[in-house]
């Protein structure tokens, strides 16, 4: 019983890491640019397909091909940024959110339906030779590919955090979050900063998509649910905190798995675990309107 509970919590952390990783990308873009890119889930989907096709056509291991997924999303992100989102840079914040949301909606329709035409509506996933392998620790099973996914997510989040804190460009990015006008006065090229954060957000989505393809499955219509999840996690963690967002994802995953287990033991099945996660989210907002780790200004 206790073992089963612990096992569930492990899965909660593992799926929560994916929520977190997906949300970190969205949060980075929104924090720096105030672009609400609702095509984020579709970027995730494209990353998943990049990894899937590399594996299917050339047997490239999905963890080895992650750089390729990153590069393809960097390119895709740059194309969409230059063609569409760059036109929104100078708008006031409200109009910016509004118009990027509209454009994001258009982009998500296009990507989703292009994927459907190119790769059919069928579900895809990646099963490697070592998929399904587990290692035991204290009687708990740790599935190899999921733990690897967790580690990759961790490395990326830490790397991002270091980049933002230690490098000049990273500091410029953070300065833009706080006050883009002042940042411009200090000689920061706002277009470059925006482009950089947009493509980095897309790349993070791409990695998350590839990991979803390994751990679960992908299909052209998957974007919407990941976008919604990412939005919730972004706000749960609190805007402006990369680590906070990632931890928020893990907390959401843990809540879902724990309530799932408890409800199942109580005879209620797994029907309400997502609801409990969302209720927890709303409670957090009631007591901490700026999210778990957000700053007061939002």
């Amino acid at each position: 019983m206790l073992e089963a509970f612990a096992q569930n919590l492990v899965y909660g952390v593992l799926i929560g890491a994916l929520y977190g990783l997906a949300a970190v990308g969205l949060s980075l873009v929104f924090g720096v640019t105030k672009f609400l890119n609702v095509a984020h889930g579709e970027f995730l989907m494209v990353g998943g397909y990049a990894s899937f096709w590399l594996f299917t056509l050339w047997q490239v291991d999905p963890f080895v091909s992650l750089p390729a997924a990153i590069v393809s999303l960097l390119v895709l992100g740059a194309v969409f940024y230059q063609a569409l989102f760059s036109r929104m840079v100078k708008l006031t914040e409200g109009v910016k959110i509004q118009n990027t949301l509209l454009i994001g909606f258009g982009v998500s329709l296009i990507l989703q339906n292009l994927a459907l035409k190119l790769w059919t509506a069928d579900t895809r996933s990646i099963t490697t030779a070592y998929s399904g392998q587990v290692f035991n620790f204290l009687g708990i099973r740790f599935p190899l590919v999921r733990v690897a996914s967790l580690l990759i997510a961790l490395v990326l989040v830490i790397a991002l955090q270091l980049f933002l804190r230690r490098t000049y460009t990273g500091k410029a990015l953070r300065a833009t979050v706080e006050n883009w006008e002042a940042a411009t006065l200090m000689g920061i090229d706002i277009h470059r900063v925006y482009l950089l954060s947009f493509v980095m957000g897309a790349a993070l989505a791409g990695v998350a998509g590839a990991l979803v393809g390994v751990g679960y499955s992908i299909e052209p219509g998957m974007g919407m649910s990941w976008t919604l999840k990412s939005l919730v996690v972004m706000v749960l963690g609190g805007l402006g905190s990369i680590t906070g967002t990632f931890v928020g994802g893990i907390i959401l995953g843990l809540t879902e798995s724990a309530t799932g287990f408890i409800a199942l033991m109580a005879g209620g099945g797994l029907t309400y675990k997502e609801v409990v996660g969302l209720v927890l989210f709303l409670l957090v907002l009631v007591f901490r309107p700026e999210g778990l780790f957000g700053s007061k200004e939002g």
Partner: protein
Amino acid sequence: MNKRNLNWIVRIGLLVALVAVVAACASPTPEPTKVPPTAAPAPTKAPEPTKAPVATTAPTKAAEPTKAPAATSAPAPTTAAAKPAPAYIEVGASIPLTGKFGSLGQQVKPGYQYAVNDINAAGGIYVKEFDKKIPLRLTVYDDASDPTQAVSKMETLFADQKVVAYLGGASSDMHVATIPIAEKNKVPYLGVSFALNAIHQKGYKYLFSPFPKSPQQTVDTFAALNQLIPDASQRPLKVAIFAEKSDWGAEEEALWKENATKAGYTVVVDEQYAVGNLDFTAMILKAKAAGAETLLALPNQPSGEALIKGMVENGWTPKFSLIIRAPENVTWSTNLKKNGDYVTIFPGWNSAMKFPGVDQLNKAYQAEFKRDADLLTGPSYACVQILAKAIETAGTLDRDKIRDAIAASNTSTVVGNVTFNADGTGKVLDPLIQWQNGKLEVIWPLDHATAKIMYPAPAFDKR
């Protein structure tokens, strides 16, 4: 903008709103004004069987006899001037080709298309009323998996294409919206890709579905098991049911429980999960702890693959698993590799079944998709076959007569011989199919089997 004008606008607006509301209120029954009793015959589908020479006043839209490509087999005597035959027999479908049911819709559409092509290649359907063969014309709209858009497509098919029959979309979410429109418009409706029996219990008169439904599937589950595993001591008697929290899930769950007991099986775990669930760990561990030997589940994607992956990782392999829906996806086995094997499904059909017409269908499918016909394609193809036969039997394009002909039909199709029960469910074969080494094999009923059941399933890590 001054106050006086403002008041004017408000008054006018409210007045009109009031009138509108009263109009809505006053007409729970169709408004008498709705269909103006114009003298000119409305351009409707069903030409009246009277011999009166209405040909001159007939709507021009339908009167294109010269364009009809059919080679008239028995030239009508010119003296008996019947009404001019329509150039086409219009049929139409609103199918979810995009959106969340896209993978189902994409299997259904080619079924309709190939059947229409094959019938038209033979000149069309002979309609006695016009004493000639008339080709079918199929109009397909994409409803983007949205039940509201589907309704609008159904009305367009009725009003603009004036279809004599509807063909259905895919998944019960969509059928539940489109079937009542067929009923309202009094147009026969043939649809597959939903096993929900509850739709058939609403008294719909125009609904026909040559597709196995939950009552049949749940009885056949244990009938097949008992027949395939004759040695009672070898049977997987302890059953775990993982039910999706939907009406179809609940229906199947209740019937499985009922029939399991009757057949001597014990349900040791019976749990529900919300649609779209990705983490089944808690349920899997419970089933494993209870020593369940049979898994009965009906997940859609992406839950289906998540379930299998969770079972692999948590080290639970039921001896027998019947998973309806997700494993019907053509990519099931390429995605999951060996872990996808041993799973059985009740898809309603398989391209390896030996019925007349299947080879031709597979050939057409091979040419376009490089594989044999998909699971839903056969039943979709059969819908058109049944319709064609019924039109020929009715000898007219009158929708009610076609409806009656379908109800009384007994048609040899690519899914076998099909007749209908009073509730519109088809008396159809319900083959149990198993993924074996990445291929779909029919394992039951035995006279259609292409392979023997692979049982019991070895543990995932021993494959």
